[in-house]
């Protein structure tokens, strides 16, 4: 047995595998397949202050090796998360990451303040949702606004703070540096890439929102590249995601510079994907003489 445990921005996890925000709810559903306590952590569905209805359907479109979604942050609001979901998650053995997504800087600050007083292990500030009209990617595609919202949230919480970056930018490293300078303890990337599908029979977009976020294996090479560039540009740790479906993908992402990883869309094809990745990482470490998984982080040898 290799040692898969990691300490990520001060948060201890028994393995580096975390289901990605929005793909795993609050763990209740997948807990009916297997015990979610086997996971390193969970990043819960993006939370807003008030409940949010989300976008009209269809909200999903299939793509080659992936999918588009336009859920639009449907969630029950911070109060429901803290009172109903968090106690259940805290009764399990895994790190709880609260993903927050305010429409304004002030809403993000208030969310952080509320969550600061709870048992949450880490806050993931989502400045990259492509499916909402306000906030979301509007924060994450500009260095000044990314810095401003990070500063406000940093001032409201002493919890480990991870900022989730958008790939829909010219230079993701500039944004990463901007949030690092404002006191972010870590960054996570990538959120979904903006995409579109059209039904050629009806000449209508498949998604009612017209456009949506692309994820799944199709985005994996882009995610690896962005994680590599970002890990080389900042000194805070990186949580890597985007298209990870197998243990080999996870190893590749960690070699690019990710200290831990998240698994999203792959769950829809295989609900057991995170467990297979954990078991596969253990096997891979044993076969390759790696004693502690953290040894491989950032060990790619670029030409």
């Amino acid at each position, binding site marked *: 047995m290799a040692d898969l445990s990691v300490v990520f921005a001060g948060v201890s996890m028994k393995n580096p595998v975390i289901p990605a925000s*929005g*793909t*795993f*709810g609050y763990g*209740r*559903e*997948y807990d*009916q*397949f297997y015990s979610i306590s086997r996971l390193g952590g969970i990043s819960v*569905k993006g939370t807003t202050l008030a409940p949010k*209805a*989300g*976008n*009209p*359907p*269809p*909200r*999903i*479109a*299939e*793509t*080659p*090796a*992936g*999918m588009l*979604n336009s*859920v639009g942050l*449907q969630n029950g609001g911070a109060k429901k998360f803290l009172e109903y979901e968090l106690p259940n998650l805290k009764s399990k053995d895994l790190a709880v990451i609260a993903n927050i997504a305010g429409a304004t800087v002030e809403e993000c600050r208030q969310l952080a303040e509320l969550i600061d007083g709870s048992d949450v292990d880490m806050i993931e500030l989502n400045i990259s949702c492509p499916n909402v009209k306000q906030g979301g990617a509007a924060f994450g595609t500009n260095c000044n606004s990314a810095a401003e919202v990070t500063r406000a949230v940093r001032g409201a919480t002493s919890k480990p703070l991870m900022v989730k970056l958008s790939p829909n930018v010219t230079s993701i490293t500039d944004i990463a540096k901007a949030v690092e300078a404002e006191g972010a303890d870590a960054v996570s990337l990538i959120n979904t890439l903006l995409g579109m599908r059209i039904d050629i029979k009806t000449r209508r977009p498949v998604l009612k929102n017209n456009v949506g976020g692309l994820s*799944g*294996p199709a985005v994996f090479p882009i995610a690896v590249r962005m994680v590599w560039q970002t890990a080389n540009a900042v000194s805070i740790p990186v949580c890597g995601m985007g298209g990870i479906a197998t243990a080999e993908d996870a190893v590749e992402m960690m070699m690019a510079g990710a200290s831990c990883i998240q698994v999203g*869309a792959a*769950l*829809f*094809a*295989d*609900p*057991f994907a995170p467990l297979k990745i954990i078991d596969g990482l253990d096997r891979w470490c044993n076969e390759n003489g790696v004693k502690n998984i953290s040894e491989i982080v950032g060990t790619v040898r670029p030409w």
Partner: protein
Amino acid sequence: MYKQGKYQIISKKAIAKGIYDMEIYCPEIAVQTECGQFVHISADGFFLRRPISVCAVDKVRGTLRIVFEVRGNGTDKISQLNKGELIDMIAPLGNGFKVFPGKKAVCVGGGIGTPPMLAVAAEYGADATVICGFRSASAVILQDDLKAQGNRTILCTDDGTAGRKGFVTDALKELLETEKPDVIYACGPDVMLRAVASMAKENGISCQVSLEERMGCGVGACLVCACKAVKNGEEYFAHVCKDGPVFPAEEVMF
């Protein structure tokens, strides 16, 4: 508990043009499956699974039966699986039909909405009247199965090539002039469901409909399968995979 695994197909046949009937051996799933639930099937080479309703459950033999139409590339791929091969599915999923034993039921199936009606009508035997509608005689399915389980059947085709000419809603309207069933079940195109739901309401009969929406996880975690619903006067997005696929008709905003 949700199950995911590869299960053996023990029979497969085409029952109409482009419509396939498969029986799958999956005892651990069959014991927990209720009529109206669905299975989420992996199609080789496609990223997302395809949701398909349960058409019959045999808890003794440990089998599920599904009947599906080839609509696009994914269902085409699934239709190429043969007897003896394995099918990868997640099941049993969703909330099924609420059954009231001893009561009188009318089941309304439009086209490929018929398979789940077979499952619910099985619970009622002679107490169920099943009204089915198809484009034409070549698309008619499952009539012998319905009769074999003791149901009264009323067959309609759009062009009159089998049964009576016209829509299921015409047949339902006529039936409701002389009979008052306790419950109506329906699955089919939205326009049909809307019409059935409003007739049920006018006649003060409780009605359950099975809905379709594009899905990701199939278990209620990703929130992509939204449908507009209303409860206690409040509109919200329910999720077809977990809150449905069967909904009380009065809660659906068609």
